């Protein structure tokens, strides 16, 4: 017997659910996680090309990498051809430094790569992995775990997708095709896609006893997706409007780093251009791990010896060369999440040569993401306008996704639609559950 499941492949977290038509079962797909129904969208590929996902990937990454030894070897990367100012044509060898003791590569925010025009894949050790292959490995691991839990083969899947992967229609189509291709490569024989907020709407609909106009505010790690829909009567189900923007949790993390944490690594104290380039890379989670080269180390050592912000640059060196980037981003994200519950938190990271302590308040956070909030509010109002409904005609506003619990946005929704209409659905699993319902229909 074969089965059809729903998979929410999220930017930060993912989930798998199955529905028997009357009930939805969110699968405890990551037994090592604090919330087993939610699995981190993280993939770790080791030097011998073994793959791990979720909490297991995180733990293995820490075990392998923190404070590990490194040895850089210079490898021939190719030839650079150029015309010199003397009019002659030159060909020169190009080399890169490769850490030959690197035990594995951690990949996160994989879904975000779908919206990039320039990211097609990456080299991991000697092999090239296309983006589709990377996603296929992750989805394949989810499928395997789900089959083990359900004791059945899973042949079909309904996958969630945001309203817009990209504002460019061509890129949006490429992203959808890549996701679909990855699902086939993962072993699914039938692949359907459903808009994530529409899936959340289906789950919400289960709780309704009469028709209503609902706005689904799906705000996760990578995108904000809004759908305004008529729910409650499957025969009259109708989507009035959909909208979205590529701003979400990971952008807020970046804002916190840029505005609050870069001074701990030399911003405002270091003055040389080379060093400032390194400092500014701290907020870029793709580029930061790539900084661990002998050249960067030499630059930092030289600046430290010359007394250029030595304490801060030692911390930067520790961040780069002790593989602390992942811990650092996690700490920032945890700080941000804490601010949804209380007015102040401390973003703190104590490691060798590093003592970050940043008292951070909700008022500061709201000030730091003010620009993003303005854009998001505009998208919300535009989507409501496109639906042809007045805010007063919307009966319920359903929040889902981790970022939807940020008070600034809850307040924005309450202000626009009235506090009594704003409801929180299951923040991390309502899309997953909705996809399972869709799969079973």
């Amino acid at each position, binding site marked *: 017997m074969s089965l059809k499941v729903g998979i929410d492949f999220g930017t930060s977290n993912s989930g798998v659910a199955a529905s028997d038509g009357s009930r939805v079962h969110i699968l405890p797909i990551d037994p090592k996680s604090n919330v087993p129904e939610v699995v981190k969208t993280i993939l770790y590929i080791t030097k011998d090309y073994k793959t791990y996902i979720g909490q297991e990937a995180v733990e293995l990454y820490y075990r392998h990498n923190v404070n*590990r*030894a*490194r*040895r*850089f*070897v*210079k490898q021939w990367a190719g030839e650079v051809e150029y015309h010199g100012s003397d009019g002659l044509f030159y060909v020169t060898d190009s080399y890169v430094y490769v850490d030959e*003791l690197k035990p594995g590569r951690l990949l996160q925010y994989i879904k975000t790569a779908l919206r990039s025009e320039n990211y097609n894949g990456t080299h991991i050790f000697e092999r090239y992995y296309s983006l589709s292959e990377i996603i296929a490995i992750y989805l394949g691991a989810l499928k395997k775990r789900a089959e083990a839990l359900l004791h059945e083969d899973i042949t079909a899947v309904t996958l969630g997708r945001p309203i817009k992967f990209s504002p460019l229609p061509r890129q949006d189509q490429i992203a959808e095709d890549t996701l679909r291709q990855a699902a086939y490569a993962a072993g699914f024989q039938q692949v359907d896609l459903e808009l994530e907020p529409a899936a959340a709407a289906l789950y919400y609909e289960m709780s309704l006893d009469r028709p209503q106009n609902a706005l689904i505010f799906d705000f996760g790690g990578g995108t904000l997706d809004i759908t305004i829909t008529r729910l409650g009567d499957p025969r009259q189900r109708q989507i009035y409007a959909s909208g979205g923007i590529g701003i979400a949790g990971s952008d807020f993390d970046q804002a916190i780093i840029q505005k609050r944490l870069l001074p701990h690594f030399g911003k405002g104290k270091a003055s040389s251009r080379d060093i400032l380039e390194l400092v500014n890379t701290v907020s870029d989670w793709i580029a930061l791990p790539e900084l661990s080269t*002998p050249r960067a*180390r*030499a630059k930092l*050592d*030289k600046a430290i010896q010359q007394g250029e912000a030595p304490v801060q640059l030692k911390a930067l060196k520790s961040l780069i060369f002790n593989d602390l980037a992942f811990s650092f981003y996690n700490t920032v994200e945890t700080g941000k999440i804490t601010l949804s519950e*209380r*007015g*102040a938190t*401390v973003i703190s990271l104590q490691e060798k040569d590093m003592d970050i*302590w940043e*008292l951070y*308040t*909700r*008022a*500061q956070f709201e*000030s730091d993401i003010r620009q993003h909030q303005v854009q998001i509010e505009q998208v919300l109002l535009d989507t409501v306008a496109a639906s042809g409904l007045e805010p007063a005609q919307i009966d319920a506003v359903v929040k889902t996704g981790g970022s939807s619990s940020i008070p600034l946005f809850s307040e924005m929704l309450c202000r626009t639609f009235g506090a009594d209409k704003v409801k929180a659905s299951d923040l991390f699993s309502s899309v997953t559950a909705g996809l399972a319902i869709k799969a079973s229909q």
Partner: protein
Amino acid sequence: MAPDKVEEWIREVEERPSSAPLIIRFIAGRLETLTRRIEELRAENIELVNGRKVEEYERRITNLEYQLELLKRQVGSGALEPAQPAAADTTSLVLFAPSGRVLRVELAATELVPAGVAASFLGEIAPDGQPPYLLATSTQEELLFVFDTGRTVTLPVTAIPAADREKLDWQQAFLQEPRASEELAVALPISRLPLFEFCIQTSRRAFVKKIFKSSLESYLANFYLGTGVKLQLDKMCSLVFGNKTDRFVMVSQEGFLFCSDVDSLPVAIEDVLKLNPTDHIVSSFILNPKSSLLIATYNGKALHRDAGWVEQSSSFKSRGQPAISKERREAGTRVAGAAAVDENDWGLVLRSDGKLVTYTMGDLFGSGSLLAGHSPAQVLGFTTFRVPGSGS
């Protein structure tokens, strides 16, 4: 603590008074941590200050021990001769061969010339089928000669007659005669020995062990030094003095580096670097964080690297950090010698045309060449030294 941050915290409290106790608790917790840390740092500072004093006394003791040793020798030789006024210290360039032959060239500070020829061989350069070992040291030093059987001989540098620097000739060399089937492996100055906790023994095939200073006396007495080499064709090639936290570095002829804290080195002999079958260790030394590394190749290149460039070896089974590229290694580039250097040091190069040439480090760092100012030749040996009296 920037004042604008405090303003922002106050704004938070104005917006949400419930945040006030939280903020106060966070700040109080941080103050407590910082107070504890200040106390720890103060205690550490006191230890450091004490440590410096200890180091100063150790230096004085070393000096006194050395003076005493000189006096003992004078007494032992027969009559206690009246103390001679201390002569201005000079540099001795010592060349020695496995057959026990030793040549010494004495140079006053004023005779050291950048890119100058310090001495020249008249005839054969490599008396035992291999270039001689090079050592440059103060003329007032005491040398420990170690044979591959573990037998040692101690000798003041001045006991080796100074050779005619323009006509170096192995036939005229001083002979520290080996016993049957015995070869001279190492010569090193030992006056600073009391300053160190360990003596590190290295073999040509990268077998290493550290010997506690307290055990060294029995090692010397029982001829244990240099013994314990595991491979039949291997033999000891260097002894280095170091302290627990020092970084020990060795460099192979094919340009691979091994680096480890002295503390992490094995006390039982162990191979710490996987060498190619044709490779062997050419230099080993302590790399001070303030020093840098200079690697000399046979074809005359002087590769200068910061101390930070040298990576701590991750295991004793690694192939080492490459100092020369694979392409150049495959093209035949080999290392003639390497050393930890400071700007005030001098470099000594033994050339295939028989000349011993001295260079300032400034010149070597600048030109990157060990052959600057002279006709092309192969570099047969390389070492560094500091002019006596120019700083520790």
